[in-house]
């Protein structure tokens, strides 16, 4: 086992990772940009190294600074959190070349699965259902048109190097394809430095269901059940829960089995998430595989009792999985809501600013993962996630009532700060959500027909 771990991230996830490191008896090193010098993880960690200015390119994405910080503090391992360098195969490789363990899958696996077109092909080979679409990247607009014709509209164009809901465009008819093709490609080039795109059939009114997998380095793999993340706004998840409501045990078992099979097929090690689209007629197709901890991992922790960061670390340290599949026994229902510093009334524009008051909810079966506190200046440089609120209850109606209670308890004040708590409570109150019959179209429909009060 390591003695010192560096957390190459910021915000709530850096604190969350550092917490588990502390519990494992590991010394923890935080890295921070000058904007984060009073951040929660800086206060929490045993050591903190200032690595750069607020701009992520020169701080949280700056590989040499992070490697130097690790070497100078004697960190034997780096946990990348999510986002930033968490799925960068080059970073993982540089870590290993520098004698530092990257807490994540092998660089080769990150590279294979990070190429969404290649991942599609590999998984299809492993027998996982993938959506009808292009084989590999699209060479020309003509090829795109041909494939779209074959699979039928609507289709979705995706960046090969994308993921996490970014770099995608839905095309509903042939006349829009050419324009979308060029636009998506230009966007992919600008954002990911890789202009390759591919095409899949797009399913309307689908559900987003993903399976959490853990694999050790010795070929053992288990799944920790699934999460439903269908409440999304522009492909960004807002509410996640486990188990997925109204999912038949057979279908659940098939999805989980597929995820484990896929992970084993590529020699995965660490924590992976297999994201599936679930169609109204109960078919499921692989969308992508994430080679990192997910934002929404706490719901899985709440129902299984398993600390996913702990497992990531022990796997990276070379320990075999400490439990077998049959020992994973999910219990009850967990729901997570992402409270963002955004103004729903102004199209969810971020609202950075000083928090003059920040009192999170507490009490029975409520977990809050946040880096915020009274006096924290929410900066304009990073994403607007302020607090993940997670609740557990024996059943879904109780969990939803508990979440509504918890969200209502938040006291977040600041001269300019607005949050999404009210919006989330509205979403929770929608009849289709209460019934567990909602799809990824829920938020868009909310905008069309505001909820009835009373």
């Amino acid at each position, binding site marked *: 086992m390591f003695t010192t771990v560096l957390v190459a991230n910021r915000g709530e996830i850096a604190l969350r990772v550092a917490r588990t490191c502390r519990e494992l008896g590991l010394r923890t090193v935080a890295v921070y940009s000058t904007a984060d010098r*009073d951040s929660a993880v800086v206060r929490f960690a045993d050591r903190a190294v200032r690595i750069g200015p607020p701009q992520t390119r020169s701080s949280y994405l700056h590989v040499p600074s992070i490697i130097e910080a690790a070497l100078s503090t004697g960190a034997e391992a780096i946990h990348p959190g999510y986002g930033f360098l968490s799925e960068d195969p080059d970073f993982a490789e540089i870590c290993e070349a520098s004698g530092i363990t990257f807490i994540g899958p092998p660089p080769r696996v990150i590279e294979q699965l990070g190429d969404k077109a290649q991942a599609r092909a590999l998984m299809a080979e492993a027998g996982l259902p993938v959506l009808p679409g292009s084989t590999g990247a699209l060479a020309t607009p003509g090829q795109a048109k041909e494939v779209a014709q074959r699979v039928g509209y609507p289709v979705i164009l995706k960046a090969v190097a994308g993921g996490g809901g970014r770099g995608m465009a839905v095309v509903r008819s042939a006349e829009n394809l050419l324009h979308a093709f060029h636009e998506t490609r230009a966007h992919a080039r600008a954002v990911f430095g890789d202009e390759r795109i591919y095409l899949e059939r797009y399913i309307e009114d689908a559900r987003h269901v993903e399976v959490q997998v853990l694999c050790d380095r010795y070929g053992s793999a288990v799944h920790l059940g699934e999460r439903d993340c269908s409440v999304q706004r522009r492909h960004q998840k807002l509410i996640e829960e486990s188990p997925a409501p109204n999912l038949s045990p057979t279908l659940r078992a098939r999805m989980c089995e597929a995820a484990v099979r896929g992970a084993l097929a590529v020699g995965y090690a660490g924590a992976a998430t297999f994201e599936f689209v679930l169609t109204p007629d109960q078919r499921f197709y692989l969308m992508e595989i994430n080679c990192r901890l997910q934002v929404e991992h706490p719901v899985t922790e709440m129902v299984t009792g398993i600390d996913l960061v702990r497992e990531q670390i022990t796997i990276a340290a070379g320990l075999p999985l400490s439990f077998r599949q049959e020992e994973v026994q999910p219990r009850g229902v967990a729901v997570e809501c992402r409270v963002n510093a955004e103004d729903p009334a102004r199209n969810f524009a971020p609202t950075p600013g000083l928090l003059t008051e920040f009192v999170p909810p507490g009490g029975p079966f409520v977990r809050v993962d946040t880096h915020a506190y*009274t006096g924290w200046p929410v900066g*304009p440089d990073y994403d607007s996630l302020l607090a993940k609120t997670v609740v557990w209850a024996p059943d879904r109606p109780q969990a939803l009532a508990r979440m509504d209670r918890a969200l209502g308890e938040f006291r977040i004040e600041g001269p300019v700060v607005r949050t999404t708590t009210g919006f989330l409570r509205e979403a929770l109150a929608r009849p289709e959500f209460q019934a567990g019959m909602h799809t990824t179209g829920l938020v868009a429909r909310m905008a069309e027909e505001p909820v009835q009060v009373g």
Partner: protein
Amino acid sequence: MTLGADKKTHPENGRQSVTLINAHSLAGTAEVTKADLEAVCRAVRELTRACAQPPSRIRLQHGRTTVEVEWPAPEGPAQPAPASVATAEPEQDTGLTYVCAPMVGTFYHAPEPGSPPFVSVGDLVQPGQTVGILEVMKMMSTIASDIGGRVVEILVPNATSVEYQQQLIVVEPVAEG
């Protein structure tokens, strides 16, 4: 000395209380002694200590002492915290400037082991002159002084890990002409 305190609420906006303290004071141009100043500073330290947050600003004027302590008060969107812990800019009071680390790495005084250091205390440096080397992932890059002046102190020992913007060398600008 009589002190009065009024806490009023402006009902028209229902917002914040205004506190007035009328303390009696002294006219004229009495000399402010060093002891006085120290007393003020101590008082400010105590005031700020009682506060959860570190202040964002302290202003202390000497003649007819004025002290201002300010905590982060947001206005409009986003006021990125001034990161000016260590910049190469001159400190207004002392006139000293600092050469700071541009990046995380290992700071070396000399081009190679055994060589004499680039600069020593007392040396005069020219703007742009190399004053040290930073090693970042086996890559060496030189560190130069932005301005000319005399080396007052070398703050970091040779072959030491440094943080981003860590102060390395103190330079006292030499008056021109």
